[in-house]
């Protein structure tokens, strides 16, 4: 069995699972992790990780300003907004 702490994983992902769902996902994740664990059989000593198929250098952008949209467009899908701000319940730090 794997040692999946489903509570911690769902906490990090900002997902809430009730007891029943947590148990189901824990089982499902355990099975999947066990399934992918076959990678351990493969010797990868000295192999460089592959981040991206294109391993060329970054295409850089010139340091120039382009204004292509309005504030209204940025806010148009907001569930709650006020005075050109996005609005959320008060945050206590």
């Amino acid at each position, binding site marked *: 069995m794997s040692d*999946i702490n*489903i509570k*911690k*994983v*769902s906490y*990090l*992902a*900002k*997902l*809430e*699972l009730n007891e029943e769902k947590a148990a189901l*996902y824990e089982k*499902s*994740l355990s*099975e*999947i*992790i066990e*399934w*992918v*664990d*076959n*990678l*351990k059989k*493969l010797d*990868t000593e000295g*192999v*460089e*990780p*592959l*981040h*991206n*198929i*294109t391993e060329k250098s*970054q*295409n850089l*952008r010139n340091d120039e300003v382009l204004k292509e*949209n309005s504030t209204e*467009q*940025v806010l*148009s*899908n*907001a*569930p*709650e907004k006020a005075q050109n701000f*996005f609005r*959320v*319940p008060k*945050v206590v730090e």
Partner: protein
Amino acid sequence: MPTIKEIKNQLSNKNISVQELYNDYYNKAKKSKLNSFNHLLEPEYNKENINSSQARYDEGKDLSLDGIPLGIKDLFCTKGVPTTASSKILEKFIPEYESRVTQNLLNDGSLFLGKNNCDEFAMGSSNETSFFGPVINPWKNKNNTDSQLVPGGSSGGSASAVAEGICVASIGTDTGGSIRQPASLCGVVGLKPTFGSCSRWGVVAFASSLDQAGPITNSVEDAAYLLNSISSHDPNDSTCSSHKRDNFIESVGKSFDRPITVGIPSDYLKDINSDIAEQIENTKKHLLKLNVNIVDVEFTTTDFALSTYYILAPAEASSNLARYDGIRYGYRGEGNTLEEIYINSRSEGFGEEVIRRILIGTYVLSAGYYDAYYRKAQKVRRLIKNDFQRIYNEVDFILTPTTPNEAFQIGKKLDPISMYMNDIFTVPTSLAGLPAISLPSGLSNNGLPLGIQLIGNYFQEKSLLQMASLLEKEFCFNE
């Protein structure tokens, strides 16, 4: 089904107007019972585009895709048109921008009939994870005509709609097989281009290092038409290649003026069923008729591809989907604190499979597991890429089945791992970033379509489409 070229001839010869053509497809789509569209665009909505397209035909200045009604997978952001990724969390999202790929298609004169249903955030192989319900495959099992079959996924709506003939073609996306697998199960053509061919800008991300747009069509030639449009350099996508694109139509249907070698990986054929084995045998015969040299090849990494994929894709997805938090757009759950809004928006907004993948991805990236899973998988990914490169020293193309089975019944496959196994033949190519096409090759014992997959070397789409077009002629699948 008419090809793009044929439809364009009809429009040029005034046998039909752009408006009539659009209405015709729109009405068919509206009547369809297969749930392949999340959103249809009424003729009125497209009026301006229809008129300007007609004007270009009238002047004899039609563009490459002028007037062609297309389906667009609901993963591409389309300005002013709802874009949902088939998820509750984006149910009401209307982008203020147009993806690069769909902008290219509009620039070439095509008309968007609507947004195709797909698996939620493209996570699925049966189109059953959609918030808007499963898509139905137009094909029926001749031995069980009552049951409804899946179209495959995640671009299931695209494949079903093209197979049903309610749009001329559709643009899908492929991360681990999401174009090729549904194309195979619906008896249509599906092409996943080389990673970096088509811009990902404006495509709702699933796994950034794997996602790639591509056409689902009724013919190889149509796929070439669409690829000409969607494959272009985009400075707004850092991973999009800047090489000069070929004209992919030129060589379609032409025979090769050089000897061609196709490799068939024996390790892919180890445990396949008789339906699938027959497709490969049959394809071999046709290849021989085409004077193609066939060689056996063997990969050393095939058994590890699915595991690699199901670590890397969920890892990237878990991070890509963090932006759906109910603050700036999308579904917002109830909550008195920011934390509650996050949790409720996400827990209520995402479906079961998406949550599973987010959890897997979060786990493999978390402290203590990163090296064992994520970094390990990235190393294996390099071995997989090297494996293909080794084989491409000997062959021009690789031939494999597209799927391990025919279309299955909706609701039948329940456990995730057997669902993931659907992508066993398509995932290695995705990890290597290579171009691959699924071509309908014949029918199963149950009378259901099956496809073969042809894989090309990096950015060799032109010759890949050429090879596919020659085989297509041999298969006579559409007749």
